[in-house]
């Protein structure tokens, strides 16, 4: 199997998780919260994929989330690409599990903040950015994104690592 397409196969392996979180959001639709895991989904691939592959993977994960929601085009995808570039050039910061947890929490929280603010910019007339309503909603979404990142990182990374092993992606120590 060609390693050039590793990012695509990995995306296919990750997609059910993204869909699963969407279904979880569906099941709590009455509460008006959107659950989010896309930020945490790029952590394990960034340890092993080459940079350009990690960038493509992260961009696609971002675009997948944006495509079915009224979020300004590219806002989340470009943020995830930026995170992927940073993580692939600082692989020592996601070397072990505790560091991966930190990275997952930070990237997922940052990505959640990005889409929340980007989507909220369209409603500035009714909800000012610096209002209690906005801050409360943002904190709630951020909290949920953080909790989900912590809860789902291990199973998600296990599946992604399994997929990368099958594809033949080199181990973190060997990755460029």
């Amino acid at each position, binding site marked *: 199997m060609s390693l050039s397409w590793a990012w695509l196969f990995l995306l296919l392996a990750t*997609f*059910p998780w993204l*869909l699963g979180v*969407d*279904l979880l*959001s*569906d099941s709590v*639709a*009455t*509460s*008006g*919260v*959107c659950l989010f895991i896309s930020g945490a989904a790029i952590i394990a691939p960034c340890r092993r994929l080459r*940079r350009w592959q990690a*960038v493509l993977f992260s961009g*696609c994960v971002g*675009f*997948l989330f*944006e*495509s*079915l*929601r*009224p979020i300004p*085009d*590219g806002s989340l995808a*470009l943020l995830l*690409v*930026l995170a992927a*570039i*940073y993580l*692939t*050039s*600082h*692989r020592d910061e996601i070397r072990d599990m505790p560091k991966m947890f930190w990275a997952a929490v930070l990237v997922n929280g940052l990505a959640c903040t990005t889409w*929340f603010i980007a*989507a*909220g910019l*369209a*409603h500035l007339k*009714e*909800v000012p950015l610096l209002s209690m*309503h906005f801050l*409360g*909603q943002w904190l*709630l*979404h951020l909290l949920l994104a953080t909790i989900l990142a912590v809860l789902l990182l291990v199973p998600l990374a296990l599946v992604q690592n399994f997929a990368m092993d099958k594809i033949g992606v080199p181990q973190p120590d060997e990755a*460029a």
Partner: protein
Amino acid sequence: MDNNRQGAKASYVALVFFTGLWLILPSAVRRFNREAFAEFQAPALHLVGKGRDLARYWELQSRSPEELVAAARDLARINAALELKIHSLDDARKENTRLREMLRYPQSTEFVTVVARVSVRETSSWWQRIIIRKGRSDGVRPGCPVVFGDRVIGRVSVVHLTTSEVDLVTSPGFRCTAFLEGDDQSRIVHVSGRAGLALSAPRAMVSIIPLDYNPPAGQIAKVMTTGLGGVFPSGLTLGTLEAGVQTTSEKHMQTGALTPAKELSFIQEVSVLIPKYPTAGEILLTPADAGKPEEFR
């Protein structure tokens, strides 16, 4: 600094360049990108919807024959009553058509109904929407009204090949004119969705309510579509006006909250009303004469 980190600088520069390019690209490119990723997810959404249908099917299979017989008997009674109603409505429709022809009154918009199952519900502070399993290939167009019975659910906002995104009545992008029950002068009010609070039921807002309007005593006032604008047929129920209508700061109008007519978060099936002919807005947006039916040329 190792080679890996040095290479990152070039990547950051490339990202900045790409971001700039992304901002100045024609919107068609961004739309194509969005559409491509939506289509990528469409089969999975269909699968999810069909899985739910299958679960419902097996749930119904587990019901006892007595229950099913009772349900069939009830349905037969309802069908009989509805058949009588259809006959009376058919007479009224013929009479209506005859009178319109006599008065040379413009025909009201006619709709084709497409029933669609709900795949996924999406809610957040900034949007309340559902994704339905009918799309462009079924004739669904952006802006089509979405109803359940005589109750308004929302409006189609984005259409993909086999799926569509529907903005619910409570979604901030939703706008509609309405009449209030109990207002003898049939004055027009404005219904709009609003950014919702998480962990609470989403609501829409009814604005420009006249100061002298009083809801019918002992009843909850219904909010109904006007039919103006040609998007929604008239007389559909948008919801009910909640108690506690407030006067605006300028003291010349009132505003109130609207509770949607149908529990939007649990809905499983909707009907999309597709206008038989292009609406006025669609005709205005269509370049040149392309796509207009003969009678509009």
